[in-house]
């Protein structure tokens, strides 16, 4: 189906052939429809990307500016939801999954407020808990209670950051104990 020239919501560029104009207008309408469907189903990332691309090519295309704002609001809300979920996991002591939620939030909207603080808070808790777990592990290990020691070393490995020298020490000893307890 070919749109009539005066149905196209796109002004014709100087020197643009009728056919090119029609094709360009139809392509923009198709992308607009795709982005709008994405917005309606809550895929704010796809919607925002689609609307932003349309506006780069044709500023002011239909109600795209308003829909882009709506998509970005949705993105921000989704990121805030992810942070909130992460905070709940943090409160429950599930720091690993809390960080995964924060990663999701960052992928959705890098600029969402509170993200940096949330990362910092959880990582500090993990480092502190990892150090404490390593200390418990050493104490169990010292007196030959290897099963309990292994359990604590594994926590230390999970919680201490990879660049912490204690992380490698905990991992090495955990591997030794795992082999010993087999």
């Amino acid at each position, binding site marked *: 189906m070919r749109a009539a020239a005066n149905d196209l919501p796109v002004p014709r560029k100087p020197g643009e052939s009728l056919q090119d104009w029609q094709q360009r207008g139809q392509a923009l309408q198709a992308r607009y429809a795709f982005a709008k469907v994405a917005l309606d189903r809550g895929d704010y990332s796809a919607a925002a990307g689609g609307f932003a691309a349309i506006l780069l090519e044709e500023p002011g295309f239909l109600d795209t500016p308003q829909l882009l704002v709506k998509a970005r609001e949705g993105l921000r809300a989704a990121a805030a939801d992810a942070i909130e979920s992460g905070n709940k996991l943090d409160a429950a002591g599930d720091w690993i999954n809390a960080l995964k939620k924060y990663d999701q939030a960052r992928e959705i909207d890098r600029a969402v407020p509170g993200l940096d603080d949330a990362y910092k808070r959880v990582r500090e808790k993990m480092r*502190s808990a990892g*150090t*404490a777990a390593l*200390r*418990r592990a*050493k*104490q*169990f*290990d*010292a*007196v*030959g*209670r*290897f099963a309990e020691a292994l359990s*604590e070393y594994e926590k230390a490995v999970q919680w201490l950051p990879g660049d912490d020298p204690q992380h490698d020490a905990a991992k090495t*000893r955990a591997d030794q104990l795992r082999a010993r307890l087999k």
Partner: protein
Amino acid sequence: MTRLGWPVVALAAIAIAPLAAQEIGAPAPNEYGRAQKLEVQPFETGNKQIRLEFPKKDWDVVPANSAPVSVPGVTWPIVSIVQKRRDAAIVVEGVRLHQPLAQDDITDLFGELESSAIRERQSLAKDLQAKVVQAGGRRLVIVTYNRPGTAGAERVRQYTIPGGGADLYRLTCSATTAQFARYEAVFAHVAASFTVAGGGTQ
């Protein structure tokens, strides 16, 4: 490894306790510290590695003459110091740990582990109270408990002192319950004077 009466709930509580909640306090004066008025004499092992002071009068030394054992988990006797009327005794032993422990590694958990080890060795021990203390530049565990003895009920105070690296020393100080208070200052002095060359300081 067998485990008897391990206080799982207590351990779990320690495991989740924040580090700040496990700050180490000083011992009570009657538990640890030199007795200024006590006349003492030194005891030193043959290799001069271990030194302590005990009362000049009315105590006998029974050296063990055994060398340190390098097998982890094995205890070796160092010396026994016995009050002449057999009212009180101090038994000093060493043990090689499976992993070295730094001073900072000694927390309330280690006090619980020491209590657990006492329960394993002495099933009739009761009323165990363990605490980790910081004194004289070192960290140690003090466990006080009761047990039946040959001359009736005994009260015992065990000092667990890291010797640096993988060596740990236990001073088991016992007296009949009725006489314990009389010898408490002696026990406190012996523990405070206990030193390991290149390891635990006073």
